């Protein structure tokens, strides 16, 4: 083992960590009107991280630090998606965040949470998994509470309590697995768990999965998602519904890949997936607040994303479809949030009435993102859904495929509830309590960064769908243990 080489392999993570520290220090010294320098520091650090990760993909996949951290296709995709998604979040939030009292702290916390998610996506040791979990969770509590409204305080408290509970469960699970497996690295655990008592392995796996489901925002760890999405700032909401999921789902895949068939974990994960997509959809049906609606929609999306996790290692398509869907989901979900960020005075579905007239480009981005979330071709989520369904069927979970299809149809209903008023002929002006005058609502968008990122995001959703073949073949290589 060579510590220097291993550390160099971690360059993407090091960039993010350095960016966070520099942003925090610079923020403490800079006068308020120059705080925006920290934004560029954060973006540069994330760009450097993404480039380092992309360059690193040319290397053969390997594990470092005595097999505790994998540098393979899963980790690379995780790093690139997380870095790019965090840049997108910062850009869509430029108007919302600039000039606020805690601008630099927000960027530093976003970077730290992103770093935690990167650790999750590469963790091939249970202890690293816990570190990643804590590193994503703690900045999130602060980020959610930062908007200082009663709702945000409640959401932060809820998130904290649930996170602490499921975090302790996770540590318990790690202890049990360590006890029966005699080690914490996946390389050791894989063979050791084959002969371990099935009940103990099941307890350990369930407890660890519980923690990961909290991060992914899927059943049973989903309660904080709608509250936090509604009450936190839009940029933070976009971040917390996207980035932690990427890390947590890759981590879950990596873990389940080594769990032996002595317990029927595909059934367990399949049930969790079915519960997530169904519950998320049912709860989203009659939401009027668009951010709460998006919050529930992300819960249902986790359900679809868990299809390939449920057949981890049992279908050649499982890993590529998961990584493709994660990339597509991140782009599509962030685009929807960018539209919300660009129209801050419109909070409910009825506020969007006639928005297509006043903001045609944003309305176009909204169609692409919402129909994209449904899985309408040719968007990237369509290819994601197609391949995940094929993978789950290939792994003989046909019942789950049928549930996923029925849920997709159901989800169309609430996305259309939002799209229909947007494209209706009558222009009703926003009447939400916090809104400005009618004239201001009809005026052209002033949040140029948010609007620009919405349109860019929509374009990327379409372009990614066309180049999906290339992504799938890159994502085709196996994980490193």
């Amino acid at each position: 083992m060579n510590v220097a080489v291993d550390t160099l392999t971690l360059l993407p993570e090091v960039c993010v960590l350095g960016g966070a520290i520099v942003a925090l220090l610079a923020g403490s010294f800079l006068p308020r009107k120059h705080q925006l320098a920290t934004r560029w520091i954060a973006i540069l650090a994330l760009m450097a991280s993404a480039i380092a990760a992309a360059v690193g993909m040319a290397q053969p996949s390997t594990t470092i630090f005595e097999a505790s951290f994998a540098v393979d296709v899963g980790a690379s995709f995780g790093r690139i998606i997380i870095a790019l998604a965090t840049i997108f979040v910062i850009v869509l939030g430029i108007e919302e965040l600039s000039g606020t009292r805690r601008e630099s702290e927000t960027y530093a916390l976003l970077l730290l949470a992103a770093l935690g998610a990167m650790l999750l996506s590469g963790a091939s040791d249970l202890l690293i998994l816990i570190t990643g979990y804590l590193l994503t969770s703690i900045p999130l509590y602060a980020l959610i509470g930062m908007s200082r409204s009663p709702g945000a305080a409640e959401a932060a408290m809820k998130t904290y309590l649930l996170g602490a509970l499921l975090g302790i469960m996770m540590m318990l699970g790690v202890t049990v697995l360590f006890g029966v497996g005699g080690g914490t690295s996946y390389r050791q655990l894989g063979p050791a768990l084959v002969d371990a008592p099935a009940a103990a392995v099941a307890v350990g796996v369930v407890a660890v999965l519980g923690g990961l489901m909290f991060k992914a925002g899927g059943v049973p760890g989903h309660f904080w998602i709608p509250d936090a999405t509604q009450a936190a700032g839009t940029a933070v909401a976009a971040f917390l519904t996207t980035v932690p999921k990427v890390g947590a789902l890759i981590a879950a895949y990596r873990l389940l890949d080594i769990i032996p068939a002595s317990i029927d974990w595909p059934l367990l994960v399949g049930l969790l997936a079915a519960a997530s997509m169904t519950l998320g959809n049912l709860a989203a049906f009659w939401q009027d607040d668009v951010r709460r609606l998006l919050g529930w929609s992300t819960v249902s999306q986790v359900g679809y994303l868990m299809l390939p996790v449920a057949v981890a290692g049992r279908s050649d398509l499982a890993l590529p479809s998961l990584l493709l869907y994660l990339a597509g989901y991140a782009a599509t979900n962030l685009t929807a949030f960018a539209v919300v960020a660009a129209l801050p005075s419109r909070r409910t579905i009825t506020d969007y009435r006639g928005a297509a007239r006043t903001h045609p480009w944003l309305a176009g981005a909204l169609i692409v993102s919402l129909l994209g979330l449904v899985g309408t071709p040719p968007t990237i989520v369509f290819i994601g859904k197609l391949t995940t369904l094929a993978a789950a069927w290939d792994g003989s979970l046909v019942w789950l495929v049928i549930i996923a299809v029925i849920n997709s149809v159901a989800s169309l209903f609430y996305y259309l509830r939002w799209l229909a008023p947007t494209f209706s002929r009558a222009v009703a002006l926003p009447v939400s309590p916090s809104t400005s005058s009618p004239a201001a609502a009809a005026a052209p968008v002033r949040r140029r960064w948010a609007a620009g990122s919405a349109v860019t995001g929509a374009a990327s959703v379409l372009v990614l769908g066309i180049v999906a073949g290339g992504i799938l073949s890159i994502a085709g290589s196996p994980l490193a243990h």
Partner: protein
Amino acid sequence: MLSLVVFLPVLTAVILVVVPRVSDRAARWAWLGIALIDLALLVGMWIGFDSPKPGALAYEERLQWMPSVGSSYHLGVDGLSLPLLTLTAVIFAACAVYALRENDRPRPQAALFLFLQSACLGVFAAQDLILFFVFFDLSLVGMYFVIAGWGHGNAARSALKFFLYTFLGSLALLLGFIGLYLGADPHTFDMVELARSAPFQDNPVAGGFVLAAILIGLAIKTPTFPFHTWLPPAHTDAPAIGSAVLAGVLLKMGTYGFVRIAMPLLPDAWRSWAWIIVVVGIVSVLYGALVALAQTDVKRMIAYTSVNHMGYIVLAVGAAGVVSNTSAQAQQLAVTGAVVQMVSHGLITSALFLLAGVLYERRQSYDLNAFGGLAAPAPRYAAFFATAAFASLGLPGFSGFIAEFQIFAGSIGTVPLSLLALPGILITAALFLLASQRLLTGKTRGLSTGFSDLNTTETLSIGSLLVLSVVIGVFPRFLLDVIEPAASVVVNLVGR
């Protein structure tokens, strides 16, 4: 060449949306111009068309798309798709002419219809299941916005019902496609390769489920009884040109799916399920005709006759799968008739829906009883309506006769039970005569008073559709020469 035909409309649509300050007038004429150019290109392809050998395609194009999941950008034309591609271009061109005088947001309307045209052409040109699905779903999205944006009455609700229902169908179809993909060895989504390897030959149970998923998807789209309930509200509340495209082109995607996907790719399962398909066809024929007879709303009536007319096609393709010894010729006749019926129904029903649209535009009503004696104030309208009605009930000299004659001759030859569907023709005849009588004859009364006759654009668009129906009815050879070789290929594939 084929890609150009498919993507030319949508590229124009993008230009119309993106370029600022395109005037309404320019948008309308650009729409018409592109629709005509597309039609001219297809006519050119028809002239240069040579029936490809079995298992081959004309104007084939293939590019890599997703090699790791066995899907490619694969377009091609044969005797089944060429008539439908041309039909699509004809109907969209007729709609562009019809819409020349409309004033309701012409620029987005033109862009939307051009987008929809590309989606529809893509469905009929695609030779890869995923590509087929992409275009299939995009046509739903386009039609949703047509109904929701330009419809009347309870448009938002009807559009929602249409989208949800047909989206369910498209996902059932997708499930079937995934099943086909996993059943093929090596895994592929390519229709030509799948037709060659015919997966599930040795696994009838799995093949049956995959066919069931595909059949449900196609039956919703077609629609056949009992999946037709989305159709009447969607038609009633859609704008005239939306209805014309919905009935003329979108419904054909369902029936086209039978001959393009279900029959050649799952021959074993098709043969074992053929009886059910025949029965569904007969029920659709009779049920559609009877319910149409009871309607007083013109558009609902035409919508239900569509269920009836689509029923003939389902009957024919079902009969083509029933095993018998010496019936290859009859089966080929039935499949040929089915494809001719697709073209014929597209032309005639689009014309009827445009005529119904004229009623609504002048008087905001579709109620047959509110009109009467239209022949006096609007003789040209009356002549067109009567012509379209006679064409639709299958009078000799019109395309419908050629189609229905072949369907019955072919189906009864293999399945004598098909005789049960014959009363459908009688009922349809009765209902069209009744409707014409109520609407056109007698004393001019009610909303008919002061009804202005068809103007130039209406005459041109509706007239051209009817003329084509007559041309096919009198000189069917040019069409049959294209369809027959392809139909025999399909029958051979089903019979293997």
